[in-house]
């Protein structure tokens, strides 16, 4: 038996050996490897065939509506050419694209002029009133809105939950639903992925909830009233949002992209009260609005950081491009320094190891201050900055702490298979969500923020994935994929309570949480 277990693969007879092992039961490790390899490649073959059949059906349906047998959009050749021209208009304020929209252009220009005067006055007044207050760091990754203290007149405190079937406002401690803005995920016979979808996280400012969403008719930016969840307005945009809307001084700034390698994208500035577009700027690369500070928009493309003037969209500086293969995944401004992450995106060889980096930039000119050592894996969530440390998790299962002054590593902790959400830091403790290999017994882990030493772990019998944890007032809010929000004590991880959205009529999904104090 031991001889069988130690069976080596022999070059001279390898074909026959593989044939023999594939016929026998996988009772030896050699046979097991052969069986598993065969099964794995069979699975891949099924995927390739399944995808091809779906693709072929789509290609045929496109072919029937176009003369070309490859590209259905040949029939809108003029429109495509227009899009191509738009790509070369990078650096200019975009114009509306076709003649049908001409009347809208006129009315929009008129509306924009009026709004610009009103908003300009408003900005001036607000800037005067709030001078100095906007220097506060923009911690968008925490999802804990900090504006409550300056806008106590608005009834907006509480927990906001985003699920596949819309947006809920709930009592943070009891989970009692106050209102629900319903979006039918199966409208028009949609598939299991849903044809309506709430995109990204919410931004809650001045009594309004802003978020992106899709339905069969297109991509929209929504505004709801925080008091009762009624729709204030929704504005159709050309593309999917690339990030959470940022709202400053009554103006919403958001990026949108067509999601293809062609990377047609825009940054929009919209009136927060009406949804009217104040200006938009076109790019021929995917762009995300990350931070607005002192009248400057800090945005990121896949490989560059860039700034625009928040009042008119005029371009400012552009950073040097990242080394080939690296792509920015997040950007934030803390303490007068921009911090960014990048991961490897395109692989010319499957044998290459993926690496990710953290960076610090000077926000005035875009000069890089430091770049961290390479870390194995990739990062999809923004790092968290607390004190003089920067914390981030990697798909490789590790959590890292860096010194924000020079990017040197302070400690690392092997949490498991993958760490997707941004770490949360409170009271000297770092809280992370860890994804297990089986995807159904993930854990929340608490580490000492200074040393990286393990403090406690709590297994959540569900998939956490990339959903963000929240920590507030000694309570850790942990959303999981079966529609449950777990409330844990930050002191020891013991469960305070949990509330479930699993009886909602829509398919289950992990709630995305936004807390307003």
């Amino acid at each position, binding site marked *: 038996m031991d001889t069988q277990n130690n069976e080596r693969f022999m070059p001279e007879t390898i074909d026959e050996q593989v044939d023999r092992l594939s016929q026998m039961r996988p009772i030896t490790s050699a046979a097991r490897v052969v069986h598993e390899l*065969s099964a*794995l490649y069979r699975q891949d073959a099924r995927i390739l065939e399944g995808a091809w059949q779906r693709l*072929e059906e789509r290609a045929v349906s496109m072919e029937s509506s176009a003369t070309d047998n490859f590209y259905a959009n040949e029939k809108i050749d003029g429109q495509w050419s227009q899009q191509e021209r738009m790509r070369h208009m990078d650096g200019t304020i975009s114009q509306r694209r076709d003649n049908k929209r001409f009347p809208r252009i006129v009315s929009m220009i008129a509306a924009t002029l009026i709004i610009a005067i009103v908003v300009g006055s408003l900005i001036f007044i607000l800037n005067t009133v709030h001078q100095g207050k906007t220097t506060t760091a923009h911690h968008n990754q925490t999802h804990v809105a900090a504006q409550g203290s300056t806008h106590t007149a608005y009834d907006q405190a509480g927990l906001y939950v985003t699920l596949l079937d819309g947006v809920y406002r709930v009592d943070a401690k009891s989970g009692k639903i106050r209102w629900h803005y319903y979006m039918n995920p199966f409208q028009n016979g949609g598939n299991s992925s849903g044809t309506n979808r709430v995109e990204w996280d919410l931004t809650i400012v001045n009594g309004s909830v802003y978020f992106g969403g899709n339905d069969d008719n297109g991509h929209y930016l929504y505004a709801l009233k925080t008091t009762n969840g009624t729709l204030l307005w929704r504005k159709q945009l050309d593309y999917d949002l690339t990030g959470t809307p940022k709202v400053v001084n009554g103006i919403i700034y958001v990026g949108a992209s067509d999601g293809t390698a062609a990377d047609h994208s825009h940054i929009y500035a919209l009136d927060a009260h009406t949804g009217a577009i104040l200006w938009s700027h076109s790019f021929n690369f995917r762009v995300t609005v990350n931070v607005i500070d002192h009248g400057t928009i800090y945005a990121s493309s896949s490989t560059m950081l860039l700034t625009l003037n928040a009042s008119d969209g005029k371009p400012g500086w552009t950073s040097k491009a990242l080394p080939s293969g690296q792509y920015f995944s997040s950007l934030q401004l803390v303490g007068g320094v921009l911090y960014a992450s990048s991961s490897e995106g395109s692989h010319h060889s499957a044998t290459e190891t993926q690496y990710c980096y953290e960076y610090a930039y000077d926000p005035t000119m875009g000069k890089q201050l430091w770049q961290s050592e390479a870390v194995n894996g990739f990062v999809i969530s923004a790092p968290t900055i607390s004190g003089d440390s920067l914390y981030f998790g990697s798909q490789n299962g590790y959590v890292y702490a860096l010194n924000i002054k020079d990017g040197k590593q302070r400690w690392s902790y092997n949490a498991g298979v993958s760490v997707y959400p941004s770490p949360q830091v409170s009271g000297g403790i770092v809280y992370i969500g860890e994804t297990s290999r089986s995807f159904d017994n993930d854990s929340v882990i608490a580490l000492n923020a200074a040393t990286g030493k393990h403090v406690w772990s709590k297994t959540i019998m569900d998939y956490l994935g990339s959903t963000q944890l929240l920590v507030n007032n000694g309570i850790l809010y942990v959303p999981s994929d079966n529609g449950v929000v777990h409330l844990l004590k930050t002191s020891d991880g013991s469960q305070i309570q949990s509330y479930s959205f*699993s009886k909602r009529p829509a398919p289950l999904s992990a709630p995305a949480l936004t807390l307003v104090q």
Partner: protein
Amino acid sequence: MQLKRSTKRIAQDAPIGVLYQRNAPSILTYIRRHISSPEDAEDLLVEVFLAALEHNNLLCLNEGEQLAWLRRVAHNKLIDSYRRAKNRPVVTLDEVTDTLYEDEEQTPERVALRQEEHNLLRSHLTHLPELQQEVLRLRFAVGLRCTEIAALLNKNEGAVRMLLSRSLDLLRNIYDNHHGREVR
């Protein structure tokens, strides 16, 4: 890779067929490094090539640029899928209990164990040199013998035999180490 035909047909030598046959395995390998669910991987693969269908100028690029373009799209789609993971719908077990257990191999426990084995194997496969990966793929996915693989890759047959046996030995050793020789 032989492409099955749906009732409506696209010529296999049509540009999309050629593009798919040439690049889909590589794109799938990239996707599966990050997504373990076969269903999600298939969805993403379809999305990538749908984007290709809708991109008018792709044929103007050379083969290397086409692959780079597709990988870039796959990267964008992967990031989007992670970010949308919070809205990922899940079907409760109760809803599918009636259909799950007709085949013992399809019970949740067996499926999960098998998927875990696949994930482990795949992670080790992706760390092998590219040539070794290609030899394994041609042997197990396409079913070629060493003589045929050598001819296809323009390599010496002895070298292919050596590569294949070394790759399999390496994977077997990794299995032994991982499972603590718990061979039953």
